[in-house]
């Protein structure tokens, strides 16, 4: 069962420290969608999630789940399941008791509870751990227990708060893949909070980029990546971030992978913006070359830029050398110099 979650004009104001953690957010998920809330720590994404879960009451605005306003309802009545960053497994209960705990609140039949728990455990491949205590499990196993516990509630919405951040880097990649498959199979609307743009790009059907309690952009990963709404989104997503070059009243932006030595750009020279750069340093990262350079031709003098040359491009680059790079005009983005908001194209050649 999948429900739509919608928030309207949602605000959360914390008296303590006078913080506007969430400052007027409007979002609506689609049915069965995987929506990722992405932002730096302290941007309000977790507060937003907690308000949807019912753990915090909004100062203003409405939350709708499945079309019903759920403001004022306790978490248990919202038909949601949540996985915390810490997994919040009950340390004094076995895995089985952890999984059946949500069922005990409503389901009186002990055998039915067990049946349901073992169904969830099998689905997540933790059937063999049912008698263990959480402290005897690895990080990945704990995460599965937390998911199984969320699953047995048959929630109409999954809320996940950085569930991968406690796993080590290697495990994280496989766990990410599993999470995605899992959700696709269940088709349950999922809201996922993370500060990791790689996770967000990999998991989300759509990404909501949040900064200082405000939504900066909502869109599919590739859209957010290639058409960032403002300079914050442009630099927050992508590693290395988008190059931004100050040109007085506006900023010129392009992705590092779109900036290559001119000989690697192919023939259609008309649509190219040529950039003369002074190369300072080259990093070799899993085959790609990251070129740290400065340029003076595009805008402010000695503007820093980073170019990422994929492994498939063989063009020679050397440190401490001047060289000519180029960017396709279609890959150029323009942002307002004051607000940082993306604007329409401007002429780049003088």
């Amino acid at each position: 069962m999948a429900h739509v979650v919608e928030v309207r004009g949602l605000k959360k104001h914390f008296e303590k420290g006078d913080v506007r953690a969430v400052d007027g957010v409007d979002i609506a998920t689609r049915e069965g969608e995987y929506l990722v809330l992405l932002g730096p720590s302290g941007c309000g994404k977790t507060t937003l999630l907690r308000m949807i879960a019912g753990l915090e009451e909004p100062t203003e605005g409405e939350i709708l789940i499945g079309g019903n306003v759920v403001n004022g309802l306790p978490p248990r009545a919202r038909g949601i399941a949540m996985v915390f960053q810490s997994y919040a497994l009950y340390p004094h209960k076995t895995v089985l008791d952890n999984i059946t705990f949500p069922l005990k609140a409503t389901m009186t039949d002990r055998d039915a509870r067990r049946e349901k728990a073992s169904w969830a455990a099998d689905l997540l491949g933790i059937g063999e751990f049912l008698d263990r205590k959480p402290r005897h499990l690895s990080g990945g196993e704990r995460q599965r227990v937390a998911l199984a516990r969320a699953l047995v509630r048959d929630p109409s919405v999954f809320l996940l708060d950085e569930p991968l951040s406690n796993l080590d880097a290697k495990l994280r990649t496989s766990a990410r893949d599993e999470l995605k498959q899992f959700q696709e199979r269940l088709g349950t609307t999922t809201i996922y909070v993370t500060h990791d743009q790689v996770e967000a790009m990999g998991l989300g059907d759509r990404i909501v980029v949040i900064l200082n309690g405000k939504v900066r952009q909502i869109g599919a990963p590739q859209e957010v990546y290639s058409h960032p709404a403002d300079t914050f989104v442009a630099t927050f997503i992508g590693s290395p971030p988008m190059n931004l070059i100050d040109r007085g009243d506006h900023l010129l932006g392009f992705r590092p992978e779109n900036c290559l030595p001119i000989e690697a750009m192919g023939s259609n020279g008309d649509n190219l913006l040529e950039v003369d750069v002074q190369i300072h340093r080259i990093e070799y990262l899993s085959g790609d070359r990251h070129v740290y350079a400065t340029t003076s031709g595009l805008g402010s003098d000695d503007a820093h830029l980073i170019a990422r040359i994929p492994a498939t491009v063989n063009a020679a680059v050397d440190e401490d050398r001047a060289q000519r790079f180029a960017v396709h005009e279609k890959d150029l983005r323009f942002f307002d110099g004051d607000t940082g908001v993306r604007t329409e194209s401007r002429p780049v050649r003088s």
Partner: protein
Amino acid sequence: MTPAHRADEVGTVAPDTVTRVPEPTPRPQLARRRLADREGFLAKLFLLPTVAYIIGLVAFPFVLAIVFSFSDVTTGNPSLDFVGLRQWRTILGSRVFWTAFRNTITFTVISMALIVLIAHVLATVLVKDFKGKWLVRFCVLLPWTTPVALAAVSWLWLLNSIFSPIDWVLRWFGLIEANMYYLGRPVLAMGSVIAVHVWRIVPVATVIIMAGHMAIPGEINDAAEIDGAGFWRKLREITIPLTLPISAVAVLFGAILTFADMTVVFILTRGGPTQATQVLSSWAFFKGIEGGDLAQGAAVALFLFPLLLAAAIAILRAVRRTEVM
């Protein structure tokens, strides 16, 4: 009210998007918040018994003590007749009061100085690892865990005028001819009471200061060691400054325990010889309960309050500073 039904009213979701799959897990869908969910209500409910207890059995008796002190109530004549400041004048005019007052302060100040010193040394030792630590810790805690009255009984025998083993040892070494009469001479009696207080409160203070020691992150000590600080420099520049707030807590806790205690005096000396060890609290007891003069007893006890309040505020300040750390 089913979700679909509400969806019609709100109109954000087309009714047919809400698929009605039978739910295997029953759930009180859209149950209104019950009392058990409301934090504000629960908080009040949870605190009510405590507040009732404190108002009924602390605040009320406290007010009663003040009322008593302005009346002429005695055990024999329990009716409350207002006599104004008469009892206070009587007390302030009495020599015993001033002796008791002075003794109270003396006991507290000297005990505290000794307690801080000893507790700091002991805490430094007890946070280290060494063989037999468990036994040492057990011994050090004994004075604290034993009921004060019984501990005082043990000391009463230890300081016995004839059979004190301390005297026996001193005699054996030929240091004294006759016994010392620890509890029979004013200065020695005071010293004895102080020794018992120190003995009994050092464990509490040590535990508190140990907590402070343990709260210092190990990395700070490691960093100091790498920076080349020896034991004394580490003590002076890290341990003492960082445990200062919690030491203050220990001091003031101990001060209140010493200050308000009458058990040691009551059992060891009963205030004697010639009021030399009389303190405000013991005198309040002798006057109020044994003498039956409830009004004067209450007035004497009330003298403890402003001093306690000052100590309490100081504790709170110290705790605040700990938070900053």
